[in-house]
């Protein structure tokens, strides 16, 4: 089976309130041909291998610095991206991809959905839920291959 050309990759901890926005988006996003939906707790170096063969990547994460309900940001390989914990930033992941494969990273965007509360055991907040729905509506209307 041919590998889907578009990757939608959401991450976050479903048990930490609005940190669940990334996984929730992936869980509820409308299925499309030629799109792989992927979810994980956080971005890791080996996720660079998930980018191989893609023509486009959409990263999805909760954000506390985004406008409501969400922002779509272009992201480029970033050698100076901070690496402060066990997880990577999307820009750093793209840079790792280029270094590991010797290929140019696929065009990528970050869907940053505004979140508000992140406590352990908290559910998705009502406000974040509305932001998620707006993001899902946006995704449903994004032209295929855009």
């Amino acid at each position, binding site marked *: 089976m041919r590998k889907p050309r578009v990757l939608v990759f959401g991450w976050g901890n479903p048990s930490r309130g609005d940190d669940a926005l990334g996984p929730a988006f992936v869980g509820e996003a409308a299925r499309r041909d030629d799109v792989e939906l992927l979810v994980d*707790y956080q971005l890791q170096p080996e996720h660079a291998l998930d980018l191989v063969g893609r023509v486009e990547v959409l990263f999805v994460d*909760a*954000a506390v*610095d985004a406008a409501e309900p969400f922002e779509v940001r272009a992201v480029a390989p970033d*050698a100076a991206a901070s690496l402060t*914990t066990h997880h990577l930033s999307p820009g750093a992941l793209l840079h790792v991809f280029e270094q590991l494969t010797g290929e140019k990273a696929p065009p990528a965007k970050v869907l940053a959905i505004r979140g508000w509360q992140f406590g*352990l055991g908290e559910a998705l907040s009502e406000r974040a839920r509305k932001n998620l729905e707006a993001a899902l509506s946006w995704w449903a209307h994004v032209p295929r291959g855009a």
Partner: protein
Amino acid sequence: MTDLRRIAIEPLSRVEGHGKVTLLLDEAGAVHEARLHIVEFRGFEAFIVGRPFWEVPVVVQRLCGICPVSHNLCAAKALDRVVGGVPPPSAVKLRRLMHSGQMLQSHALHFFHLASPDLLFGFDSDVSRRNLIGLVEQHPDIAKMGVHLRKFGQQVLEAVYGKRIHGTGAVPGGVNKHLALDARDGFLARVPQVKTWALEAVALARRLTEVNQARHQDFGAVPSNLLGLVAADGALDLYDGGLRGLDAEGRLLFDGLEAVDYRSLIREEVRPWSYMKFPYLERLGPEAGWYKVGPLARVQLCDRMPTPLAEAARREFRAAYPGVTHAPLAFHWARMIELLHAAEDLERLLQDDGLLHGDLVSTGARRREGIGVIEAPRGTLIHHYEVGDDDLVTRCNLIVSTTNNNQAMNEAIRSVARRYLDGHEVTEGLLNHVEVAVRAFDPCLSCATHAMGRMPLQVTLVDARGAVVSVGTRGSA
């Protein structure tokens, strides 16, 4: 004790989560005490209480984004007792397969992506390049090896769990599914290469250790007891076995203690400045009873490794460190020996058709209490649950690996800070060395909220009278 000044250091980059270190100085300006503040563990146990017990092995995976499998397996082991089951042989093999996959991926992450930049570039090199990005640019082959080792471990887990995260691999009394034949065959074809990489990883860790042996030997080294699981025959066993303890010189303190005995063995001291408890061996008391867990303890606790290449590597390690070493930087070499063992163990298990068929779950008479112990990548992990007749968890006690190493980390930081604190200023050099010491233990400081822009950090300076002099926060990573 009345005139202690405090210097707070943060952040600790490339340690999971958020970290803050407070150094208490005495009147002479020497470091009297080091305090590594870890705030994220509060609430974990309350998070579990009130949930149906059968949900717990899945839910606890969300405590940590790096080692969810360890929590899954330890919870399942504890709850095996609650459902009165003894997991069937196939279930045990599948659990061990998960555990070795987990050990491989977690150890690869730590050594290649977090620690090796310190060792390859030097502690005092530019911190903005002393990281994975610098590694892939200057040592791409090493970075690739780490990525592929970690990927293999992750793919084994995905095959057993059915998906990358939120899977139901281990359940009370057994496991949820077999390994598919095509997945098994695919892994078997690739595992020889994984073993080759693992051997190279051991050689690299050894070389980097020996090149800097004079510096590494004393760096943050503080003698302590050692604690970990070993099999009945004394071999390393990361999944099961009895608890063994050695004193700082390697003399046997106890051996073969069952998981349920942890309550008579370990006490947990509460200190007002930390949310994390300080476990100690009760018979020795809090002053002398603290201990180390994790790769450095395990490789020195066991009589042998149960796989041949790892055993040869262990012998070389022991020959390099006659007696017992307490050097935190020796963790890295020991960690790679365990990674090699995990690769060998994966190969052994993948050749066993018990992964493909056989009973998966066993249950018996219900019990109200269950205790499980496992060796997680960072050390001994204990889960303890009490369950009511309504199936809801009424009590939960978790002693995670980082908690078991709590005092050891503080002592290592104190040792390093005493040596590298020059005057009354937090210099780059001091920051670098404290960071390297903490990272050797690979503490899981947080179980990870990773929303963009949300990486709150706080610096607090408090004077000798307890007054806050300054508070600084950092809003994003």
